[in-house]
């Protein structure tokens, strides 16, 4: 660490004299590399000199950070002595550099084909700490920061390779534990920790161990690995579409684990937005920007049905339109890992049941429950994880956070198959109860074709099927002008003549949307209860009940014989 002190004015004067003659224009290249503010698309990516993490920001904030950084670098790194000449020089360099940001700052992008400087998030094998970035897979430091200590201000200037963008870090000085995650299997590490906690405490391991017991109060290695993958999910720097929901009654250790071992050591501090606020709060993107974690572990008793639209959007892509109250919307990146909890799986209902959305949900069911009479200790092989409400026993011992990181990296290694594949949870306690719609019905409706409907109508022919189709002009299809012009006068002729001819059907429905009677459709495909309401929820459509006898009709379009429900 470089210490800026008054320890030797000769050394400082020589350093300064070496730089004083340098023309102002020559400073641009050096400072563009070191100022830690970059042009990023329409906005800026900036890191204040005493911070380690970058954030996305707009022009005014970027300029403010830039000026702070330039003064810090010039005053404390390059010109550690002060006199009028040096002060003048510094001022000239700063004003020259900040005249126009877009032409002096480096332009960066995360995309390789962007035509500008490519920057990267840290590799998934690495975790950033206050004293450097450690590569757990290769068991060595990726790099340590250039730290300039400003003794007079009790502050630091952190600098590191501008090819890497650190967006969050653990605010602790990390020292490797001496275990290589590549060479020591997880089960062996668990045994090492079991031995360790015989003589010492490690609440992180003990909580993980307790939370990994199954419904029969038996420790499950798979549950432990699943939990490690969830910790790994929080450590991953790459964008990940998954989100995690922890299911279980209170007192199961989830708050203690995340609050005690993780949240209080992470910079920037994780946000705490409920899953409901993703549905209701239109400014949710503003609160998630520049945050790497959103952890909300409170649960209510209400059953909540989620439309899932915004949640799907935010978890689907890193590139988002950010909306902040009183600020014009702008494009930015959101790379935030979400963890929520629920008491009961029955009380969470997601309307979106597409495969694309369903695979994002990862559920972990916790069966362990702490009680103050410690009855849980008699039920199985549990550790006595009793601590105060303030969690000070966990928070004060940094080893808990270090173990969180090690187990998390084991999990990340497992979910990415040794950091080769994309992240994929190996386990998921998710089941169909988490949706309020019938998945099998949805699958069947996705296979629904006009041919199925026509075949069904012809098979179950009765006069009532007259009312199966209405035109969008709200006329019965069989007696509409178009059908009559084709020469089909009666319903029977329509049912067997017109609908029996595949070309007729294809031509007519290619050009015309129609209303379809859902009650009659229900009879054709043999579905029984709550058919209409299930379809309404599945496709988020309105139903017309004005056409015939108060019966529900849905508008459909036929594409390549496939029936699509539309609004």
């Amino acid at each position, binding site marked *: 660490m470089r210490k800026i002190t008054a320890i030797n004015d*000769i*050394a400082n004067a020589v350093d300064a*004299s070496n730089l004083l003659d*340098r023309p102002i224009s020559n400073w641009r290249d050096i400072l563009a590399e070191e100022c830690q503010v970059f042009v990023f698309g329409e906005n800026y990516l900036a890191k204040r000199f005493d911070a380690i993490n970058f954030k996305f920001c707009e022009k005014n904030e970027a300029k403010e950070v830039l000026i702070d950084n330039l003064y810090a670098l010039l005053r404390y790194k390059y010109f550690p002595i002060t006199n009028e000449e040096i002060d003048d020089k510094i001022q000239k360099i700063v004003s020259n550099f900040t005249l126009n940001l877009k032409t002096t700052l480096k332009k960066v992008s995360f995309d390789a084909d962007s035509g500008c400087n490519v920057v990267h998030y840290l590799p998934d094998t690495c975790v950033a700490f206050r004293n450097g970035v450690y590569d757990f897979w290769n068991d060595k*430091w990726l790099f340590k*920061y250039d730290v300039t200590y400003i003794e007079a201000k009790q502050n630091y200037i952190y600098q590191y*390779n501008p090819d890497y963008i650190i967006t969050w870090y653990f605010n602790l000085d990390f020292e490797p534990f001496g275990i290589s995650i590549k060479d020591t299997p997880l089960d062996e590490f668990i045994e090492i920790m079991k031995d360790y906690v015989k003589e010492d405490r490690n609440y992180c391991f003990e909580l993980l161990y307790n939370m990994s017991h199954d419904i029969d109060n038996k420790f499950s290695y798979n549950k432990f690995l699943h939990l490690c993958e969830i910790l790994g999910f929080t450590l991953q720097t790459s964008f990940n579409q998954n989100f995690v929901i922890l299911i279980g009654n209170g007192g199961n250790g989830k708050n203690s684990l995340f609050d005690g071992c993780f949240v209080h050591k992470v910079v920037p501090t994780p946000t705490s937005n409920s899953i409901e606020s993703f549905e209701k709060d239109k400014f949710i993107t503003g609160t998630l920007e520049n945050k790497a974690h959103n952890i909300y572990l409170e649960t209510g008793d209400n059953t909540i049905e989620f439309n899932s639209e915004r949640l799907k959007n935010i978890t689907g892509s890193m590139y988002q339109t950010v909306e902040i109250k009183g600020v014009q919307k702008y494009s930015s990146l959101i790379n935030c890992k979400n963890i929520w909890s629920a008491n009961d799986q029955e009380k969470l209902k997601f309307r979106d049941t597409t495969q694309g959305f369903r695979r994002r949900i990862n559920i972990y069911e916790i069966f362990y429950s702490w009680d103050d009479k410690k009855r849980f200790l008699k039920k199985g092989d549990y550790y006595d994880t009793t601590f105060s409400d303030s969690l000070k026993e966990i928070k004060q011992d940094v080893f808990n956070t270090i173990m969180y990181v090690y187990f998390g990296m084991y999990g990340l290694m497992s979910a990415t198959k040794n950091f080769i594949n994309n992240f994929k949870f190996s386990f998921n306690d998710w089941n169909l109860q988490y949706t309020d719609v019938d998945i099998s019905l949805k699958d069947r409706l996705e296979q629904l074709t006009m041919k199925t409907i026509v075949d069904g109508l012809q098979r179950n022919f009765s006069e009532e099927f007259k009312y199966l189709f209405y035109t969008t002009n709200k006329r019965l299809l069989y007696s509409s002008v178009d059908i009559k012009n084709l020469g089909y006068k009666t319903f029977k002729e329509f049912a067997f003549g017109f609908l029996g001819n595949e070309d007729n059907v294809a031509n007519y429905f290619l050009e015309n949307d129609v209303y379809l009677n859902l009650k009659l459709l229900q009879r054709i495909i043999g579905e029984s209860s709550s058919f209409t309401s299930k379809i309404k929820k599945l496709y988020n459509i309105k139903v017309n009940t004005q056409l015939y006898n108060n019966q529900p009709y849905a508008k459909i379009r036929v594409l390549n014989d496939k029936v699509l429900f539309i609004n």
Partner: protein
Amino acid sequence: MKKRKRKENITLLNTEEFQEKKEQYLKLLKESPQYSLLVDPENKYSFGEDEKTFIGLYCEFKNIELAALLSKIDIDKAMTVYGSYAAQQEIRRINNAMYQVQFSNKMLSLEQIGGYLSSLITDNVPRGDRITSSEKVQVINTLLKIHEMLSNASLRPGDIIDIDIEEELSTLSLDSLKKLLDSSNNVELKKDKEEIIEEFKKFNNLTDEDISYLKSLSVTELLKLLNEVNTKLEEEKSE
């Protein structure tokens, strides 16, 4: 009165304050990783051994091609290493450290010259070495100049870095000492140096720190370095 003031100035070099400051400075250069001439002494950048060798050799010869040949890495890798943030930081730091070493050497040489001159004006000199009264005035003036430079080391270090101490100190005559300290000579010297530095620039783009360091060398040292680079390059290429 004037005489007493001169005497006070002459004894300034031996004051505890100056000696303490100087010792502190030399200790800092020796012990602080900031001024270490080794590549990445704190292992901040996780360089490979070959990369460290390349950076060290670059700082020594200011020539990417020669550093690549001597460290046995191909030129493409050498260019990548040279252009990396970590290497640039280290090159900048080492250059600055070398500049500091140059300064400290010159400071010590000046002090040594000051000591030698002081001994000439004391009464304890053997009869054969004694100098005339007019020479004494010259010596005292030169001595004052040296004292001024040293006492201003933390205010105007450029004055010291700009002088070229090339000859063996013991063989320096009073005339040549005076010439050495005369700033009017610097104009010519600077011109010569710039011409030689242009030769170095033909190999690659030198950083500002590279140039500052090269400027701190004397003309003879610069020529010697340039000659060494050229000879080694030819040798390596012929192998």
